[in-house]
Structure formats: structure tokens, C-alpha cells
């Protein structure tokens, strides 16, 4: 039976032609103290595609996202965003690249002294000086409506649930209309219904905006729903990269065990 995702992808099929990699990670290595977290990872994501990065806890999935957005510096290897290697870029130059990227943190990381609306407006206030206050207000309402949070404009982050915080975090990540979306455990800690809602929301946004997305998750069901392809990490290496069917057909013992336990 065709899933909603399969139907949506078929409809979007003609747009996939001629896509170039937006994010290219080559031989990426990262060590913390004596711990090798990433041991030479190679990945790439094209425009309009979603890559889900799976793996056990502590295998460097979140570190990979933090490296891609420049919150960590790699020991070696390269991360190319639209062809430009970002490794070692100065903070302000990195800022220009980050404007094209949206990041949803695992715990949403909303600014706790600002309201929901102010959180979403935050990137706009700093980067869209051309916008008037009323235009910004409208944009914030529109973004919050997209994630189903239009009724919580004046609430503080502490007054809303974890799932709602993730929605607001997602709206904030989308504020500058990014070309690349990085999602760190978007459904972690949520009940199955909230997880499903977040998955649907990501899928909808993905289809509408055609961003290149990387989703780090433990949730195989969620990964299968929202991603075009999956990469399974273990001990800092990509064990396998392909579609869900490729993972199912794999003879690699670790992949079989991972799928069995998930």
C-alpha cells in the first residue's frame, strides 16, 4: 500500500531532476579528548531531499549536525555548503552561511525570557531590517500558523508542552526561509500522536519548500516517514546509506540488529 509520503514524492518527482548536492560531507573526523566521535564520514544531501541519520546513542549523530552548522569545528575533512567549505570559517563569515540554514535543537532551545512570538521573530529582527514591525508580526503569525501554534503568540516557552516547544522551534528555524534544514531528534520525548504530528508537519514543509534536510533521530518509524534515504551510524562510521528497503535487505549484522530492536 502506498504511503502518503510515496504519493507526495511521486507528485514531486519532476522537480527532482538536475538537483545538485547542497550539503556535502567528506571524510569528516571529530574527536573529543580521547574519544573518536566521527571517523571519516561521507554524506551528501541534495535540494528537496531528506536524509535521516540513525544510530545508537553516543554515535555522533548530533555532533554531525553541530559540525554542519558550525557549532563545532572538525578535526579534519570538509563540509561543503553550496560548494563552500565551512570548516574553520570566521564567526561572521559563517553567519552568512547560517542564514541559509535552519536548526531545530533536540530540546527546542527556545529563549526562555521571550514569548513564543518573540522567539520566532528573533532571527527576523536581526536579519530582516527591511521589514517593518507590522510585516514582521504578520510573518510571525504566518510561521506559527504553519506549525499550528497561532494561538500561542503571547505564551512563554515554559507555559507550553515539549511538543509545542518543538513546533515553535521549527517555526523559528524556518523564519529566514532556509535552504537547508537540520533537525536534531524532532520527535524525541514526544508521545506517539505528537510525534506523528511533527512528522506530518516536517513532511508538509519539506514538500512545500523543497529544502535539503538532515534529520537525526532514533525513531525508525519517523525516519521512514519523512526521509528519502537513511544513513546508519555506528562507532563514528556510516554503516549503510540507502532507502529503508535497502536497510531491510542488507545482510550486515548490525543493520539487522538495529532494525530488529527498533
Amino acid at each position, binding site marked *: 500500500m502506498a504511503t502518503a509520503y510515496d504519493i507526495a514524492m511521486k507528485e514531486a518527482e519532476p522537480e527532482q531532476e538536475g*538537483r545538485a*548536492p547542497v550539503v556535502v560531507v567528506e571524510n569528516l573526523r571529530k574527536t573529543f579528548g*580521547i574519544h*573518536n566521535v566521527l*571517523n*571519516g564520514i*561521507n*554524506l*551528501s*544531501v*541534495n535540494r528537496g*531531499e531528506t*536524509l535521516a541519520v540513525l544510530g545508537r546513542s553516543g554515535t555522533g549523530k548530533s555532533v554531525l549536525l*553541530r559540525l554542519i*552548522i*558550525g*557549532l563545532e569545528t572538525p578535526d579534519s575533512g570538509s563540509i561543503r555548503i553550496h560548494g563552500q567549505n565551512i570548516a574553520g570559517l570566521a*564567526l*561572521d563569515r*559563517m*553567519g*552568512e*552561511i*547560517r*542564514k541559509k*540554514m535552519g*536548526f531545530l*535543537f533536540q*530540546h527546542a*532551545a*527556545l*529563549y*526562555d525570557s521571550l514569548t513564543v512570538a518573540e522567539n520566532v521573530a*528573533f*532571527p527576523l529582527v*536581526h*536579519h530582516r531590517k527591511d521589514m517593518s514591525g507590522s510585516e514582521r508580526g504578520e510573518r510571525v503569525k504566518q510561521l506559527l500558523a504553519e506549525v499550528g501554534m497561532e494561538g500561542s503568540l503571547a505564551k512563554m516557552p515554559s507555559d507550553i508542552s515539549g511538543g509545542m516547544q518543538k513546533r515553535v522551534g521549527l517555526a*523559528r528555524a524556518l523564519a*529566514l526561509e532556509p535552504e537547508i534544514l537540520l533537525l536534531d531528534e524532532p520527535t524525541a520525548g514526544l508521545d506517539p500522536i505528537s510525534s506523528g504530528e511533527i512528522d506530518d508537519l516536517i513532511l508538509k514543509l519539506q514538500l512545500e519548500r523543497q529544502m535539503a534536510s538532515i534529520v537525526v533521530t532514533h525513531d525508525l518509524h519517523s525516519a521512514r516517514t519523512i526521509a*528519502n*534515504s537513511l544513513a546508519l551510524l*555506528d*562507532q*563514528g*562510521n*556510516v*554503516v*549503510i*546509506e*540507502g*532507502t529503508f528497503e*535497502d536497510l531491510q535487505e*542488507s545482510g*550486515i549484522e*548490525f543493520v539487522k540488529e538495529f532494525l530488529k530492536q527498533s
Partner: protein
Amino acid sequence: MSDRGVIAVEGFNPPIPKRRSEPAPSVIESVPNPINGFFEWFGSFGIFSWQVFKAAVTPPYEWRELIRQLDEVGSKSFPLVALAGAAIGVIISLEARYSLTRFGAKSMFPSTLVYSVIQVMGPIITGLIVCGRVGAGIGAELASMKVSEQIDAIEASAINPYRLLAATRILACILMLPLLTLAADASGLLTGWFAQSLVEPLSFHQFIASGFKGATFNAFLPQTFKTAVYGLIIGLIACFQGMRTRGGAEGVGRAATNSVVLGSLFLILADVVLVKFILVVFP
């Protein structure tokens, strides 16, 4: 990834190589080394200060946040600083009158009070009070933002956190400390005169005229404006401690404590240097 096939990944097929065998940490590496920690702290502090300086002098400037911080550091510290200044004025008044009377120099009381408050006690008391209130506040606030990834979120939003969070707070401390010192001085002189006039009536005009007799700007301005350096120390240390925090609630508490302890310590050490410097440059 675009070909959607299974990619034979180097290092797995053939099987994943075992992690590079790490040599066991030596005894020297495994024991926390306070000397390394000391140099590591100063090295990190130097890099942090350079990052903040670069961010502060290059646009875009965060005027709105600076004004918010001026209010936070200045207006909200004013009552506490004025109260501390008032207490100092009364204490010096009581102590000085007793000592001066013993040595038959009662007529020196106004100038003793003026010089004691403005040159010595006002600046240092203001510095320590602001270090306690503002230093702890900045340290705890930034540490809390750090452990909840809010600072990372700012950076991920393409905003320089050194510019938005650190430079604005440090600049607010630099600008507000001299003004708060003036407030503490004024408050101390007022209460010092009041305490004296309860015992021995003396008009405020007479008190001021006698206290400032023969005084030059050099006697007071450097002492007041040296507190801008206190502001730099308080702001830099609190921001540094806050933005390098690790761990949860314990880390936040530690950052707040260290901001106050180190800030006070460096402030007093700086005062030693500044007093000597002022004596040499403004004799």
C-alpha cells in the same frame, strides 16, 4: 545519496575497523593539573576577550540590547549602590570625627570625609556591590542560556553571541560603573554630612565648601573614572564564566559564584595597580 542505492562505505564493507586503539592516559594526564588549569583559564580568557573586542568594534551594533543592559546594570543597581554609599558616609563620619577630635584636627572633618568617600571608599564599594549584583546575574543568566543551548541557538540563527550577549553587557558595565560611583559618592557625602550635623550643626554649603577647598579635578576624576576598568573586569569575567559553563544546575551555580569571586579578586588587584598608576600620572 542521489542514486538512492546502498553505498558501500569505506570502513564497513569490509567490516568496520575497530576504533583506533587509544593509549591509556598516563598518570600525569589522569590527575587534574592545577597549573595546566591555570594557564588554560588565562588562555581561554584571552581568546574570549579578543573575540568580544572584535565583535564589539565591528557592525552591526546591538543598540537595543545595549540600552536594555544599561538599564539592567545602571538603573537597577542604583538603589543598592546609593544605600551602600550612604552607609559608608555614616561610618566614615562616625569614625573620622572620633579620630580627628582625639588629634585636635576636627576642622579637617569635611575634607577627610570628601577625600575618603570619593577617592577610596566610593569606587571600591561601588565596584564590589556591582560585582556581587551584576556579576552574579550575568554569570548565572549566560550559564543558564549556555546549558539550555540558547547560546547555540543564537549562533545557529547567524547572530554573533559575543556581540549580542557579551559586548553589550561588558559595555554597559564600563559605562555605568563611573555613574554609579558618582551616585555612591553623592549619597555618602550627604549621609556623612547629615551624621555630622546631628552632633554639631554645619550647613551643607559650608561642609561642601570646606571639603572641596583647594581640590582639583585631578584629585577626584581619575578615581571616579577608574571604575570603568572595574566595569570591564566585572563584565568580562562574568560573561566568560557564563559562556564557558558546562553541566546543568551545578554548572550554573558555579558560574555565578566564580563570576563574583574572581570578579572581586581581580577588581581589588586592579585597584592596587590603578591607584599606583593614578598617583604617578596625576600627582
